[in-house]
């Protein structure tokens, strides 16, 4: 909370433009649910927002440990919000471990709300404290509010007769109620949600509602021992009907819409992997939309089932994360050799190998563009935010079906789990691209190509008179039969490349997100770095810096004006959550002197980190 407000009395709320709140506790403390509820309530209050759920790979890590800490950060405001925020203004710490892990992210003067009831000797020791930080003055640089939330929760839920264990579990709702008071949020959406969620166990619903209300009352009556309370006005964003959307939801709905636009049934095959599994879960509830979901025996099978479904005339889709996608690569190679549509969603995570399964990274660009044996071109597109997942998924389906090619659709763990407000589109107004299957036997062979797109005909089994054989062995250009002939292989390799390269003529020209089409510096990004780059460039331009933002959706092939566009700038800065992958492609394709800004900590970029990068390039 920047700036100093003139405060008439403590009971008057101070108006602030944007706030960052972080909840942190044990992975069993219900931190993600707390964050989800705060998000919903804040969205309904009309603020713009961005979230960052961050949790350990272990389901229930040992309690009180630093590696078991789960957190949820939300950034909301009365202006456009592009990132989950650099530094929390408020940290709600449910135990000492959560305080230890997150303290380093706090600015001096930030508000810490700590559950003193959880700062027991045992928990302090587990978190590495020798003395209690709530009492030893080490937090004097912050505004510390130490409350025994555990005890207060137990008192508030006493009438409902829960067991001690169940009663303590309500403490996240008590804390939520308190933060609702702090930012003048409406408790009703959460209380309604609790009543519905625990409809079969009213004593649990009532206890949680009582805890929300008790936390809120605590704030109201004590005014947090002199702590200021705030209001955040609704954001001035585009008019329309809104909902919140996560990246997984965006992908699922976008794939359904893509299949509908193509007039195809969808077969989605996946294998459980963090953080992509949620896509399988979400789509498995959409059967009424002619979506077949299939949990395969392994990643390879998932890709093969999807390809087998495409062969039969469905839209085959598979999804995974980095290591799982590596396993699918041979089948993806087959898909591009037999030229069948296939969507491969990669919800990227930190690697290599198992890496950090629940942490984000965008280090599978090489794998996507270059990751198969031989000359194996295909299409790669990347979403840049939860809501953009919807539109990018539709684009993936359009290109896969129009060009008879596998398409790799890149998302990442950050945008998959994060949510943001979304102006709900009217899907009836979205473009249709119905597939026309080949039915005419006259002059047919399976690798007959469209002169313009170079896509082969799609003849599905079951069609009379079009019986044919396809496979991974090289095909004769003129008949589709097996061919080992040298010149033919050259021709087929060339046509496979030309087909994918030609897609550059069928995708939108690259636009400049923010700034001008030429100048001193352009920041080029892709994927979920959109938020921090966009915010950093906006701020730097406001400060008079000559910097622009270009963000790629089409990674391969690239928009045909991209090369000339980048050459209009003196310098090119490429921030990536990897050690420099897009930059390799840009340098290779356009010979531009691009400079990388790279981060692989498993955490998204902060705005300040991008700003530092920009300043470095502009010589300041």
């Amino acid at each position, binding site marked *: 909370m920047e700036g100093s407000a003139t405060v008439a009395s403590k009971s008057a709320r101070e108006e602030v433009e944007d706030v960052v709140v972080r909840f942190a506790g044990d992975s069993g403390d219900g931190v993600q649910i707390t964050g989800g509820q705060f998000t919903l309530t804040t969205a309904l209050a009309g603020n713009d927002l961005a979230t960052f759920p961050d949790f350990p790979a272990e389901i229930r890590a040992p309690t009180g440990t630093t590696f078991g800490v789960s957190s949820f950060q939300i950034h909301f405001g009365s202006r456009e919000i592009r990132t989950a925020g650099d530094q929390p203004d408020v940290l709600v710490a449910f135990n000492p471990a959560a305080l230890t892990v997150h303290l380093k992210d706090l600015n001096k003067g930030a508000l810490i709300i700590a559950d003193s009831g959880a700062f027991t000797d045992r928990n302090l020791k587990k978190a590495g404290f020798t003395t209690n930080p709530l009492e030893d003055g080490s937090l004097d640089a912050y505004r510390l509010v130490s409350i025994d939330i555990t005890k207060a929760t137990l008192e508030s839920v006493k009438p409902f007769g829960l067991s001690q264990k169940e009663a303590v579990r309500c403490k996240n709702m008590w804390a939520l109620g308190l933060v609702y008071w702090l930012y003048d949020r409406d408790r009703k959406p959460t209380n309604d949600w609790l009543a519905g969620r625990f409809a079969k166990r009213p004593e649990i619903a009532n206890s949680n509602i009582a805890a929300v209300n008790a936390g809120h009352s605590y704030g109201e009556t004590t005014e947090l021992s002199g702590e200021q309370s705030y209001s955040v006005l609704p954001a001035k964003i585009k008019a329309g009907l809104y909902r919140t959307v996560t990246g997984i939801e965006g992908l699922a709905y976008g794939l359904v819409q893509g299949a*509908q636009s193509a007039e195809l049934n969808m077969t989605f095959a996946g294998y459980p992997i963090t953080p992509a599994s949620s896509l399988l879960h979400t789509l498995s509830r959409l059967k009424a939309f002619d979506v077949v979901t299939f949990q395969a025996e392994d990643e390879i099978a998932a890709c093969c089932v999807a390809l*087998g479904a495409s*062969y039969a005339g469905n839209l085959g889709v598979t999804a995974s994360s980095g290591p799982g996608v590596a396993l699918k690569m041979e089948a993806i190679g087959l898909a591009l050799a037999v030229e069948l549509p296939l969507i491969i969603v990669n919800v990227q995570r930190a690697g290599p190998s198992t890496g950090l399964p629940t942490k984000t990274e965008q280090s599978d660009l090489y794998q996507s563009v270059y990751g198969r044996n031989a000359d194996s071109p295909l299409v790669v597109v990347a979403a840049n935010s939860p809501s953009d997942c919807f539109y990018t998924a539709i684009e993936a389906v359009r290109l896969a079906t129009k060009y008879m090619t596998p398409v790799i659709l890149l998302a990442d763990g950050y945008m998959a789990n994060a949510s943001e407000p979304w102006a709900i589109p009217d899907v009836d107004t979205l473009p249709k691209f119905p597939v026309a299957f080949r039915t005419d036997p006259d002059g047919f062979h399976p690798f007959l190509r469209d002169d313009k797109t170079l896509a082969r005909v799609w003849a599905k089994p079951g069609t009379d008179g079009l019986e*044919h*054989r396809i496979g991974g062995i090289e095909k004769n250009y003129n008949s589709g039969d097996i061919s080992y002939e040298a010149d033919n292989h050259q021709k087929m390799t060339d046509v496979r490349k030309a087909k994918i390269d030609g897609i550059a003529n069928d995708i939108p020209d690259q636009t400049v997100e923010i700034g001008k089409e030429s100048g001193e510096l352009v920041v080029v990004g892709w994927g979920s770095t959109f938020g921090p780059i966009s915010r950093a460039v906006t701020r730097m331009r406001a400060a008079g810096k000559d910097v622009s933002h270009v963000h790629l959706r089409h990674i391969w092939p690239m928009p045909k004006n991209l090369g000339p566009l980048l050459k209009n700038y003196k310098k090119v800065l490429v921030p990536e959550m990897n050690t420099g992958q897009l930059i390799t492609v840009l340098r290779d394709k356009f010979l531009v002197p691009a400079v990388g800004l790279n981060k692989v900590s498993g955490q998204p970029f902060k705005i300040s980190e991008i700003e530092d990068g920009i300043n470095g390039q502009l010589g300041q």
Partner: protein
Amino acid sequence: MNVATRPEKLQAKDYASDQEVRWCPGCGDYAIVRAMQVTMAELQADPAKTVFISGIGCAARFPYYMATYGFHTIHGRAAAIATGTKIANPELDVWVISGDGDALSIGGNHLLHVLRRNVNLQYILFNNEIYGLTKGQYSPTSRTGTKSPSTPAGSVDNPVSPTLFALGCGARFVARGVDTNQKHLPEVFKRAQAHIGASFVEVFQNCIVYNDGVYDYFTEKDAVPDNQILCEHGKPLLYGKDKKKGLRVKPGAFEIESVTVGENGITEGDILVHDETSKMLATMLCSMQPPALPMAIGVIYCNPAPTYEDGLHAQIAEAKAAAPKPSLNALLRRGPTWTIE
């Protein structure tokens, strides 16, 4: 076939594609493709609705030679690709063609799951106990001690029994045939096709180049009577030149023994009657090895159960019945929404 009109009655040759067959002269695969074409003609199978899907290996070239739909895929994965094809269009008659390396080495996992799920397709495993296309390495069905380019001192690992593996995976149809037995093989293929659910057929196939004669001990003309037994549901398990040899449960033990009717007081009433619905019997039949016991041929196990794709599509039908006109617009507006003026 690429013709708009077809002859009224299709002959075996009508199911042969125009592609030049590229197996080694004398390969058992010729006999199997011939038996399949005969099977197709006897079934009057619709070429447009018939799909052959294969992995990699000599056997995997099979689809190119059938005038139906065909998909030559990647090593070991045909079962998974076929599963996708079948669930996307259950009206297709899907055949998977595989070899011992393709099915039981690189593709073992997919074979396990296609059988366990009971996807309604036919899985034909050409077992020649060798890797042919890569020039003769020992395979997962090769007998211990097999000398090959990769095992010059003989292989040291134990072979897997394809049929016992299939039974262990929960296959509901397990059968065996011999490549050269052109009268019997189409009968096995027809039974496999008629079975609703995953049908597993092991075909003993001779590799003339790298493993010639590996099955002579029970497939040579003179060896057949005493070393093969044809399993037919409801009929006594008799074999031998004059059908006097038979199988019975050894008294006082849980195992099968070979006896001779008319000797030692054995009558035909003592002989086991083949019950293809008995998994226990099937397991014992699949375990038999000449010369002590004959190699079981024919439909060893057939005990249908609901198929995977029926269950899958029943759930879709149920979801569609509950929401006959699903609207993505409505779905996107379900749950909390708010309006920005």
